[in-house]
């Protein structure tokens, strides 16, 4: 069941929700059609499930359609995804042909009716071929970190992207040299989703008990995939430095993919490092553990995201929203969220991480201030309602090209 826009009023303030209605009024009867490649699973589908009903509630017609593709096509687009991230997949001309073929099929079968058509990620990007025939305003919304894309693939995609009226990236670091406007719309979290909403203390206590944690001693937590780039090993090393003089506990929790041998190796390494210490809990959580993750974050004294490379880092956003002092690796979107010493701490090393954990343990007043600032920063910049506002503004911007100032 979808949550009403009114439920966000106490969270983001009544003025903000009123502004959303005002902005929506200027969109008149124009409709937005979102198109992506999957109805479930993944961040894009998760966001659209929430954003589409909220847009409609504001009086702006929003719909969501999904392209069809064979397993072979989705294998190709998975390889595209990895290559856009810069990992070393071979991109072949055969892959391009499979992509073109599926695009042709979808062009024949799909009904493209929105006044604004927002295409999410590379999979449906080829639908732009219909632009000359049907007109409309087209935006390509790229959710992927394309700061260092595979060049051959990027050139292939750019022939489509260049035809759009505008593109949208999550961070300036992902922007490209393009002949079309590149809007920047940061990702967001939903404060009312299971992963972020307030929880009853009894449920948090239950989770503390389930994972045999001691609520009376500080808990240091990192929630992330078992991936070298998230540096779980570095987290354990930092914990061990702190543990010499402080009676703390460590929780590493994340999902694992059965088809990811690298992830399994990292998990095993972490387990071996923590094996001797009953205060180190290394948890492999199943999918749909959102509420448990929420509880673990809320039970924590300090939350870490000691990534070596990071796209945006929504786990950082989630912890900041829960008013936790967060220590993050100084990389990617973490640097956008953590203002060092103001909304958390940025670190570059294991030693630095340990130092900051100790600072937080010893200065609860300062930790509270960091946490308060962190919460306020997320409230202002990284909630779903801001995402919604940005999409509405984008609809207006697409209709009124040109000027840097638009009077509504």
């Amino acid at each position: 069941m979808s949550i009403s826009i009114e439920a966000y009023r106490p969270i983001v303030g009544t003025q903000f929700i009123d502004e959303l209605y005002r902005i929506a009024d200027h969109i008149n009867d124009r409709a937005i059609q979102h198109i992506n490649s999957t109805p479930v699973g993944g961040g894009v589908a998760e966001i659209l499930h929430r954003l589409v009903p909220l847009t409609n509630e504001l009086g702006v017609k929003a719909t969501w359609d999904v392209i069809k593709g064979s397993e072979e096509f989705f294998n190709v687009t998975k390889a595209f995804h990895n290559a856009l991230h810069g990992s070393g997949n071979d991109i072949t001309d055969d892959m391009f042909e499979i992509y073109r073929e599926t695009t042709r099929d979808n062009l024949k079968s799909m009904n493209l009716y929105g006044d604004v058509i927002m295409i999410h990620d590379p999979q449906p990007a080829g639908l732009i071929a219909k632009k000359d025939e049907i007109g409309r305003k087209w935006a390509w919304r790229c959710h992927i970190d394309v700061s260092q894309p595979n060049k051959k693939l990027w050139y292939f995609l750019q022939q489509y992207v260049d035809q759009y009226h505008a593109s949208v990236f999550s961070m300036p670091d992902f922007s490209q040299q393009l002949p079309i406007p590149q809007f920047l719309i940061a990702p967001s979290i939903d404060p009312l989703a299971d992963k972020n909403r307030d929880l009853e203390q009894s449920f948090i206590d239950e989770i503390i008990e389930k994972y045999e944690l001691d609520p009376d001693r500080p808990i240091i937590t990192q929630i992330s995939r078992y991936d070298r780039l998230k540096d779980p090993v570095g987290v354990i090393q930092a914990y061990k430095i702190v543990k010499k003089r402080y009676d703390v506990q460590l929780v590493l929790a994340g999902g694992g993919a059965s088809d990811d041998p690298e992830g399994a190796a990292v998990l095993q390494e972490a387990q071996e490092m923590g094996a001797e210490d009953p205060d180190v809990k290394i948890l492999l959580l199943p999918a749909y553990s959102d509420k448990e993750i929420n509880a673990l974050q809320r039970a924590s004294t300090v939350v870490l995201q000691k990534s070596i490379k990071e796209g945006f880092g929504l786990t950082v956003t989630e912890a900041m929203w829960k008013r936790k002092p967060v220590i993050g690796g100084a990389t990617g979107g973490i640097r956008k969220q953590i203002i060092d010493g103001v909304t958390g701490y940025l670190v570059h090393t294991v030693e630095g991480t340990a130092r900051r954990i100790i600072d937080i343990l010893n200065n609860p007043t300062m930790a509270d201030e960091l946490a308060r600032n962190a919460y306020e920063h997320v409230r202002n910049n990284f909630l779903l309602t801001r995402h919604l506002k940005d999409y509405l503004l984008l609809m207006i911007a697409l209709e009124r090209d040109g000027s840097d100032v638009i009077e509504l």
Partner: protein
Amino acid sequence: MNNVFRFFTERRLVEATGLRAVTVRDMLAHLKKVGGASIFYHTHASYIEHHFVRQRFYNDFASWISGALQEHKLAEKIAGIDMLDYTTITDLRNAIIKTITQDLNERKGERARKAPPGEEFHFCKAKNFVFPTGIEARTIDEFFECLRHISPLSLYFHVFESRLRLQRTTSDFAVWLTDMGARDIAEKINRLDPYAFNLEELRERIISLYK
């Protein structure tokens, strides 16, 4: 004379220009050709994004030069540019260019520092959407009461955006208060350096002038 003060607000969509800098020289080259909206954005965006906290630098150029390049002297000089001295973006741009050029001339022959990978400076700009909040004041009392309730962005619009966009030497508030006969308060507002506060502090400071 219009007796009603209508509070406006703004929302923005940020755009990347695709231009990025790795060294101070790159930054200087782009500063000369980038649109005025980009200069305005990088000298004002921090006030909005972090309206509740005090930052070391509100000026993105200074912040990057200090953080990514560790060129603290130049960063301080840029942050020290008195924004109130300029009523046009062109003049502000020239002041920043002059400061950087002077610094580069003084340090001729020194090896240029490069930003570490991932810490390049990305020139952005904003598309601003301006609209009325529906909040209006007809008396000075009402005006200061409204000031307590308007959003930080509305305050920002009237104090910063409106001044540089309309190329006035004063803020909207001072103009209206003068029209309403409260010249003394208007002058106090004009003497205030809004760039020295975060937006919440600025709100409190302006309200305190009417007591």
